[in-house]
């Protein structure tokens, strides 16, 4: 296991979380981003997170040093040739991902499994631009990656069963809980969670209950940890809206997934939730 090197392409929130979890579980990591300063900054933030884990007693200082030693950075995609697995966590734009996969396909051995952390694009489409679509699959982590236990392993139309099995094993080695699913819009979680937000917005839109009431009811009657409006504020109303839009489009405008105009208005107003200091609720200190 310790000889396995995992490439992580993209060092944003998801990429750096994935790299951290991979390194914490004994694998070597090669973390890529397009610019030296971006990847170094990402690594610095990861070290701060790991340092906090040491302070909390979750990991030993010796372990921290070992983890740090296992992480290398790169700004040259051809360095990924040494990897047995590559997980792409670049921005959610098909053109960017296609470009990355074409390059990875060229540099990596044909045995290497190429996984994408996309939450909204088609695994089949990304796989089809490589010469190894049978060794391309989705590996969808949840934010924050070090804390959320789930990984959706997504089978494209051409993905081989061996690839799925290898990624399921790999997810278990990361001490995550893998589930497998077909390449369909929103996969499992982002699809089935849509009504939690969308129907809450519709009930509020019809003035059947207030935002505060809906959140209170879902927590005290339904035992959800957070209400649908509080949770949108936490996720970011813009992010939540774009997930709904992408599932809606993925199903060719299926009525069940139609976004609510009020959510779009919230997004347009810049009241995006906690990160903006205001969303459905106020977060001014």
């Amino acid at each position, binding site marked *: 296991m310790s000889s396995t090197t995992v490439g992580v392409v993209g060092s944003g929130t998801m990429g750096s979380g994935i790299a951290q979890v991979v390194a914490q579980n004994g694998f070597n990591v090669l973390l890529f981003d397009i610019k030296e300063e971006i990847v170094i900054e990402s690594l610095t933030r990861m070290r701060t997170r790991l340092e906090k884990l040491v302070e909390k007693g979750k990991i030993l200082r010796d372990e921290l040093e070992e983890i740090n030693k296992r992480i290398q950075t790169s700004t040259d995609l051809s360095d990924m040739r040494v990897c047995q697995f590559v997980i792409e966590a670049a921005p959610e734009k098909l053109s960017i991902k296609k470009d990355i996969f074409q390059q990875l396909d060229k540099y990596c051995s044909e045995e290497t499994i190429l996984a994408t952390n996309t939450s909204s694009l088609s695994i089949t489409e990304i796989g089809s631009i490589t010469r190894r679509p049978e060794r391309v699959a989705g590996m969808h982590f*949840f934010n924050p990656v070090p804390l*959320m*236990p*789930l990984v*959706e392993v997504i089978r494209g139309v051409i993905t081989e069963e061996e690839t799925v099995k290898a990624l399921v094993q790999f997810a278990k080695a990361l001490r995550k*809980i893998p*589930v*497998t*699913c*077909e390449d*369909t819009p929103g*996969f*499992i*979680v982002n*699809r*089935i*969670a*849509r*009504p*939690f937000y969308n*129907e*809450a917005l519709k*009930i509020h839109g*019809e*003035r*059947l*209950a207030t935002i505060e*009431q*809906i959140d*209170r*009811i*879902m927590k*005290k*009657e*339904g*035992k*959800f*940890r*957070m209400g*649908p409006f509080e949770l949108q504020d936490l996720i970011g109303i813009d992010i939540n809206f774009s997930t709904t839009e992408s599932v809606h489009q993925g199903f060719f405008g299926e*009525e*069940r997934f*139609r976004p609510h105009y009020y959510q779009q208005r919230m997004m347009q107003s810049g009241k995006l939730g906690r990160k903006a200091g205001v969303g459905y609720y106020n977060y001014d200190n």
Partner: protein
Amino acid sequence: MTTKLRVSVVGDGSLTESIIMGLKTRGHDVVSGNEIKKQEKDIDLVIETTNLDLDRKKNNLQEIEPFIGQDVLILSTCLGVTATETASWLKYPSRLVGFAAFAPWEGAELIEVAPALQTNSTYLDHTRQFFQLLGKEIEIVDDEVGLVFPRILSLIINEAVFALTEGIASAEDIDIAMTKGTNYPMGPLAWADEIGIDDVYAVLAGLYRNLGEDRYRPAPKLRKMVHAGWLGKKSGKGFYNYKIEE
């Protein structure tokens, strides 16, 4: 309202047993519909829980109404029908108040209550006092099928059933994904088994009938499960198999 109540619970919704149990453990008398018709006892309150068979719900209410005082509060579940439509079946509609909860309701701190358009607000006060006696807060919302929590959860379950029937993942993986990927208290399919498939279907069918939008169309598998009597835990079979105790 006196502290020892005589309550008649009629109907066959999944909540019925929980409600009767809750009343009895708090020392209230539970009187069956037949007892009321025979004994002509005074009662304080009627609770009607039928959700799926609306003709039966209407019959239950119309049969009992002549035997109770015209100002006796009637609490009626609005999982499959609005409080307003239910009140329209009565001779004295202003005493009807709707409420919604899913079984098992023991863990719920809060129950949603909705007045019908016809409801006289004094009955809302009675309703609040009654639920307080049972240890529940209430939240008063507007009247529409399924109110808030049962409506939202039924739609989540419906989407999970569509995903299951489309073969995108197994029932187990769907439930794991929703508890581990987004912190749901239960996976939607196991949750449906816990609630009763008939009550979940009643909400979806009621919303679809009343609002006419495709987003409420019940997944065909749910309808078939109701017909087959696969109602979840209480019948030993739903999305999962259960051993029936006793």
